[in-house]
């Protein structure tokens, strides 16, 4: 059941997004992709809040879980890491969530979104899920967080085992895992999988990937049209609405806005001076600050090869479950965060540096994601082959006690100075 506490927390989240959507609509005379984004988030959390009242199963799931399957079965998904990130970003509640995580014995070295996820469950800040779904995609923190969530929410769960490599044997194995998951969900929800609906979602995922690629192409323009905040929204579209009409609606809106800006020769910043490649995600709580700083210095992130650049390939709606499995190998984040980095990923980084006319790269070395940080040296050396310097900033994407605004400013100023001086 939804507790009174969680209801009030989720209501605050919903009201915040509605307010942001209204403010944005007023500022942008009728609305922009940001307006739509906030409205979609408000709708998402309204569905989460109302799931039990509407007699629907509420499934809490970790990042990169194939929620197309849930949507196809009319199960309401609740993205645990995104909920923690968004609380951190919009409600400034990260300290309370992380403190609660610490009370549960989670050390500061553990990934902060997962410490926050534990905190959010322990505080009953979200509705109690009926089931917990988790996988090893995209890290060991993800793989190990499920049992704790099950214990804290007293809910049953299912672990989806994702293989590292994309061989035919491993693809078959993953499809088998997905079939087991479908059986688990059918048992728990009392509903049968709607395969036609899943096929529709797979077809829409192709459209979604196409839009991601189109947006990527538009960002090659000089000046480049997309801001740091857009970047975060771009990521959440697939994290929260994979294969859903909402993702298509948002991405189409964003694509059209960017196309208009490119046609008018408008950039994300007033005077573009530094075109940056972003490797890993900047601290969420510094997004607004980074926007100001980038405007001040004329810096713009033009490409994120490890986060927004989808791998080559398409999905086949005639084989929906196989396509869901295949999608997990196309997602951009897989390059650096799961399994070997691979030659192709390094070649993609070189190609991006050249095609996007990158002046410098920033590797936001997220402390809780140390396995990813093992790629820093290789990526830095790869970029040096095409004369692109890379700045590494040790940081945390959620915990604000690691970096101050001033420290980040000082490092970025030094880096911009170096780029200017070359």
């Amino acid at each position, binding site marked *: 059941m939804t507790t009174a506490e969680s209801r009030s927390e989720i209501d605050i989240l919903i009201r915040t997004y509605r307010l942001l959507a209204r403010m944005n609509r007023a500022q942008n005379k009728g609305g922009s992709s940001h307006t739509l984004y906030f409205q979609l988030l408000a709708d998402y959390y309204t569905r989460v809040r109302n799931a039990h009242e509407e007699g629907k199963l509420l499934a809490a799931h970790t990042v990169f879980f194939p929620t197309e399957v849930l949507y196809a079965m009319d199960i309401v998904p609740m993205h645990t890491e995104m909920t923690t990130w968004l609380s951190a970003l919009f409600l400034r509640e990260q300290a309370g969530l992380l403190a609660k995580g610490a009370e549960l014995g989670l050390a500061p070295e553990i990934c902060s979104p997962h410490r926050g996820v534990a905190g959010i469950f322990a505080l009953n800040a979200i509705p109690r899920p009926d089931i917990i779904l988790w996988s090893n995609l995209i890290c060991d923190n993800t793989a190990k967080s499920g049992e704790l969530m099950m214990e804290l929410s007293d809910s049953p769960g299912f672990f989806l085992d994702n293989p590292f490599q994309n061989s035919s044997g491993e693809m078959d194995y993953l499809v088998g895992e997905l079939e087991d998951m479908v059986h688990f969900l059918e048992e728990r929800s009392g509903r049968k999988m709607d395969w036609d609906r899943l096929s529709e979602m797979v077809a829409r995922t192709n459209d979604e990937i196409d839009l991601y690629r189109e947006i990527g192409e538009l960002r090659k323009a000089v000046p480049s049209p997309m801001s740091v905040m857009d970047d975060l929204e771009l990521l959440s579209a697939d994290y929260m609405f994979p294969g859903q009409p909402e993702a298509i609606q948002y991405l189409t809106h964003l694509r059209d806005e960017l196309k208009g800006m490119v046609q008018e020769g408008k950039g994300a910043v007033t005077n573009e001076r530094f075109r940056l490649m972003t490797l890993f995600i900047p601290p969420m709580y510094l997004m607004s600050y980074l926007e100001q700083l980038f405007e001040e210095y004329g810096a713009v992130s033009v490409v994120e090869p490890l986060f927004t650049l989808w791998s080559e390939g398409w999905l086949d709606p005639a084989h929906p479950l196989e396509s869901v499995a295949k999608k997990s190998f196309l997602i951009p984040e897989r390059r650096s965060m799961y399994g070997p980095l691979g030659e192709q990923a390094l070649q993609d980084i070189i190609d991006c540096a050249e095609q996007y006319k990158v002046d410098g790269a920033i590797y936001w070395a997220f402390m809780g994601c140390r396995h990813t940080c093992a790629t820093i040296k290789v990526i830095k050396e790869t970029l040096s082959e095409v004369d692109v310097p890379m700045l590494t900033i040790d940081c945390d994407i959620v915990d604000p006690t690691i970096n101050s605004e001033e420290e980040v400013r000082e490092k970025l*100023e030094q880096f911009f*100075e*170096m780029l200017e001086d070359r």
Partner: protein
Amino acid sequence: MQTLGIDIGSLNIKAVVLDEEGPIGTSIMPLGDEVGDSVHAALEKATTEAGLSLDSLPVVATGVGAKTISFVPQQKSITTCLARGIQYLFPSARMAIDMGAESTTVIKLNERGRLTDWANHDKCASGTGLFLQQMAKLMGLPLDEMARLSLQARARADITNTCAVFAESEVISHVHRDPPTPKEDIIAGIYYSVVSRIMSMCKRVGITREVAVTGGAALNDGLVNILEQELGFEVLKPASPQIVAALGAAIVARENSEKGTKK
């Protein structure tokens, strides 16, 4: 053309007046409670030594305190200034290790003296000049005596380098051991813990000869000796390692004036 560079560190303020022949006035003054007063005193001393008036000189400020003074509108980061200063003093240098009071910075520069990469250690006092001062107090020895004794060490006591506070406890434990660890070995251990931090930064950017050392801690022969042992070759050491960033700032001031730019 004469220009002025000023480096406002966390312990000292350094100023250099530069003309075509080289530095013609320098000063190193401790940072007092009033930053503005200390800066004025340092500038006054350097310009008086050069026989010039402050009003007539283009100035660039650098260092952690550069933003605290409003009367120097042109500022440049410490890394850029170090690169310029080192290039001026040692054109063959491709790397510099700046061992300051509160932070250690390793920079890499190209043949034009332009910065190409850097790494710094600013999360903990261990590995900095202030840490060495604290250790000297703990050992009851002046810094130069510590440096001298370290050259007589037969071994290096194990001192970890993850935290300045824990390192202090370890040193106390070595002093009070029965029998106590020889002073020379403790000091060598302290220096090695600092150097091992520096070495990891050097490796991060890639060790490239020649390597120069700058900053107040570069005056410590014992520390530099262990650094050279770890690098496996001799480093270049300026006569006044503390003023290199201020010298670089004066060079940047000259470049800016020549370009007629304001920033």
